């Protein structure tokens, strides 16, 4: 794929403003990163068109990375990643288009204030472990860990932890397949 010569210039600039910035990173046009100081990006990362990455400034004033993106991560177009506490994408994660990953959500309990003006809930860390694949249009809730080498099907809503080596689909996401290390193959499971 042709990627303009300006990316080298942009990479030099980004290396100065990001918390950590690896080699051979490419951001497609329209990627917006708010407060890049708190974002750490590994080597060989690509982030698709119009992705929106935003970080809320930590109250404690620490300068540690809040969003950590590992090596060889590919993030699809129009993704939204919002973080208050921590969002960790480990190495070799593949994320499809239109995925939303947030570690906080809205409160709605007070009926006198509009929902959009109420404070956010307590942030819970989100962690996507090595080699996983997240399909298109997936929504990932706070306090979720997606285990190693697992697959999340398209249009799922993940609201609890997914164990390693499993395939999960649906709203809310249920595990439908798991890797059996004795049989050395993927077997269907009915988790209900």
């Amino acid at each position, binding site marked *: 794929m042709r990627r303009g010569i300006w990316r080298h210039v942009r990479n030099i600039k980004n290396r100065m403003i990001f918390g950590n910035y690896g080699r051979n990173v490419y951001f497609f046009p329209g990627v917006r990163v708010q407060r890049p100081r708190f974002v750490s990006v590994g080597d060989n990362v690509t982030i698709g068109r119009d992705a929106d990455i935003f970080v809320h400034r930590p109250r404690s004033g620490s300068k540690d990375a809040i969003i950590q993106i590992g090596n060889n991560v590919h993030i699809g177009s129009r993704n*939204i990643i919002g973080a208050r506490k921590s969002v960790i994408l480990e190495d070799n994660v593949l994320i499809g288009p239109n995925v*939303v990953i947030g570690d906080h959500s*809205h409160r709605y309990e007070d009926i*006198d204030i*509009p929902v*959009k003006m109420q404070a956010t809930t307590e942030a819970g860390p989100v962690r996507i472990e090595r080699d996983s694949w997240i399909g298109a*249009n997936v*929504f990932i809730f706070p306090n979720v860990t997606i285990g190693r080498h697992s697959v999340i099907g398209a249009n799922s809503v993940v609201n609890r932890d997914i164990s390693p080596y499993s395939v999960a689909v649906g*709203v809310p996401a249920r595990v439908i397949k798991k890797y059996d290390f004795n049989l050395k193959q993927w077997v269907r499971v009915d988790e209900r």
Partner: protein
Amino acid sequence: MKKKKFWYPIANIKNRFLFAAYGKDVYIEPGVVINRPRFVHVGDHVRIKRNTSINLHPKDKRSKEILLFLGNNVIISESCFISACNRLIIEDNVGISPNVMIIDNSRKLGDISRPSKEQDLKIGHVHIGADSWIAYGCCIMPNVTIGRHCVIGALSVVNRDIPPYSLAIGSPAKVVKRFDFEKREWVKVVGSDIPERVMQEGMEASYRSDG
């Protein structure tokens, strides 16, 4: 708040001529597509983020009716899709997350000799009550009224009315929680249906708080 582009006051002056009504301090980001702004009412402090497309298909192109009404303080996030043919009302203080689709028209399926996309339009209306929050990726179908202060969960499909002060999730959306005005707290709803009486109470309460 994100930095606004420096030319947005100029765009607002231009938009004041194009829209049916245009409030103060509106920020429509670059990349928003509105095909016929003459049929849109925009209230104060509205924000429409990029890649949103708003399509309006009036029956009579020379009429002056308002097809899409956006109240004050409405926020519409990235890559939403809104299509209005008849009446689509979004009241004050509504938040709409990314990738939400809101339509008030669909196709009839009656005639099997013609392709679906060429068949007649089925026109309805959509009403989203004040203070509501519509989470990521929802789809709101025609002829739906969402009450006041509702929360619609992520990736749900709303195809029937949602009573005021309730939380609905799933596809099709079902009410799982509602605000109990006697106990003054949010309670879980058992079963999918809400009794008529409760719905009525909620409606009355919403009118009371309107003043």
